[in-house]
């Protein structure tokens, strides 16, 4: 199977989500952060030799249908458990970044048997014991890009991702993404005060990845996740901000591949 993904609009209930599907192997569902689905990236191509990657664009983001009825990340988590059913996966690995990581954690505590292995990448969702999660809506998109990454010059896909002036259509999508992120995370800001009580239920092997220079979500949140999840390990990448998959794509892909390569019970039925 080609590493190049195909695109599908997958209807979950009445809501269609734009989804990239590529690679071959055990299913891996990838949930993006508040910045939106950045497409088929270098780290995904590396994993596609061994996994079938499903990378949906959240409802309300990008080319997916609106879901203005959603009130929070718990709704999005329930939506993606339904997505897993709809695609025909009995179990899957789930990898989520930032708000996608929070979503993955909420899925894991709601239906732990559905998730084989869990990868949380700089997830929000917990109130930091020290410091604060940056108020991303208080800053302009340009400031936020600067604060999100550690060193733009070290990012191999920087030009492709951020080098061009957005077209009007891309600018409108960026606004749409930001609005949906606000809809899902405004209050309590970027966390669920009840999540910590449920995390011990998520007993699947879990890898938590953080950038040491993350200025959006304090690394202490990674320590909190690892303390609360029964089988979690924290790996911190040096020279990296809030976007490990983009800032350190090769190291990130290697970490994830090693973790997921452990014998798995993940299976995929025919759609």
């Amino acid at each position, binding site marked *: 199977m080609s590493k190049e993904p195909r695109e599908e609009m997958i209807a979950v209930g009445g809501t269609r989500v734009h989804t990239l599907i590529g690679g071959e192997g055990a299913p891996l569902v990838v949930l993006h952060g508040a910045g939106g689905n950045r497409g088929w990236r270098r780290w995904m191509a590396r994993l596609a030799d061994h996994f079938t990657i499903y990378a949906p664009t959240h409802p309300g983001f990008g080319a997916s249908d609106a879901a203005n009825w959603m009130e929070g990340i718990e709704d999005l988590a329930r939506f993606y458990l339904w997505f897993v059913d709809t695609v025909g996966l009995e179990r899957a690995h789930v990898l989520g970044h930032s708000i996608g990581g929070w979503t993955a954690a909420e899925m894991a505590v709601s239906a732990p048997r559905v998730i084989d292995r869990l990868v949380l990448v700089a997830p929000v969702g917990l109130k930091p014991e020290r410091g604060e999660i940056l108020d991303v*809506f*208080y*800053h*302009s998109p340009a400031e936020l890009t600067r604060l999100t990454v550690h060193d733009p010059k070290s990012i191999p896909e920087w030009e492709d991702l951020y080098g061009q002036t957005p077209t009007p259509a891309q600018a*409108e999508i960026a*606004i749409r993404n*930001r*609005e949906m*992120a*606000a*809809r899902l995370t*405004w*209050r309590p800001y970027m966390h669920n005060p009840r999540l910590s009580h449920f995390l011990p239920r998520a007993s699947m092997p879990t890898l938590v990845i953080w950038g040491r220079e993350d200025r959006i979500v304090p690394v202490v949140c990674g320590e909190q996740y690892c303390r609360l999840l029964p089988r979690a390990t924290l790996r911190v990448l040096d020279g990296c901000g809030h976007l490990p998959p983009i800032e350190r794509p090769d190291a990130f892909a290697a970490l994830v591949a090693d973790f997921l390569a452990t014998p798995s019970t993940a299976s995929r039925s025919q759609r």
Partner: protein
Amino acid sequence: MKLYYFSEMPHHEFADGAGDAYPSLRLAFPNAHFSPEKATANYRRYLDEYQLADEVGYHGLMVNEHHSTPSCVNVSANMTAGILGRITRRAKILILGNILPIQDNPVRMAEEIAMADLISGGRVLSGFVRGVGVESWWANVNPVHNRERFEECHDLILKCWTTPGPFRWEGRHYHFRHVNPWCLPLQKPHPPIWVPGTASPETAIWAGRLGYTYVPFLVPVDIARELFDYYRQGAAEVGRAVTDDNLGFLVCSVTADTQAAALEAGRHFVWRMGPTLRGPAEFFSPVGMQSSAGRRFALKKQPVPLASQSYEDLVKGDFVIAGTPDYVADRFAHLRQALGIGHLLLEAQESRMDHPTTMRSIELMGQKVSPAIEDQ
């Protein structure tokens, strides 16, 4: 045309430049610069000025509400309306307005406005606003829900005033199992409703459909005309005729015995147009606050921001009307002619404009300007 007196009750009691190190005077400027002693004196002074405006014949007294900003420390429009209801005798009390989307309890809001209406003997004009973004931050209410909450809060307040209780309200944003307010307005079916606007076609259309008095704030005349067209579009949808009583406009204005004195006093409005509006776009229009239609309207019109206009530009554009009674009466007549409005709201005190200057301006407006334009 009817005149309304309005003060934002500013708290410009700190050194110029004290706020320069912060992103904005709103939200970010530390309240260590707030002086309770000076505020005590100012509130009394501002209320005295409203009292004089009532005595000299202004048709109405307008109050508003903002939060987390020295530009306006009137933090409860309804509280001020209640006070004015007791200390004034004749003028309408225009609350413009209550910031509906940030309210968590519309029933309490309905009760407070009703109480002000009762205390004033039925003089309240009840304005409803969506607020600037700063208020959404202050209340930590999700701005993507701003319009939905505005409309639902409005609907529940109206139901409180017009439907005998008890009843149940289960909406999207508001949930009350026992609604039965024991405080209802004197005016029936309810106080007249007013709505301001600056750039939202949806608000103008909505107000037009419902027949509310619609008032653009501090926008160029051509933009006000276009917003009035949206208002008429809404009115036409329900077959309602639009009269000048449905339309108002807000400008800053001061008068004095000489043109030079008035122009000098008018400079105080620059603080309101510039420093107090400085700040990141995210403060004033956070994510989700503006619809795509609103964005398109703003992009199409692109008015020069008030903050970047010189005092001379503001005077030339009639954002600030400062002059002798004859001069301001002439400019007011021009606006009446240009816009077909029945109500002119005067933001008539700002920044460090002192008490004697403000009182003299109020006096001259009442004695000379108001009679000159009342039949126009």
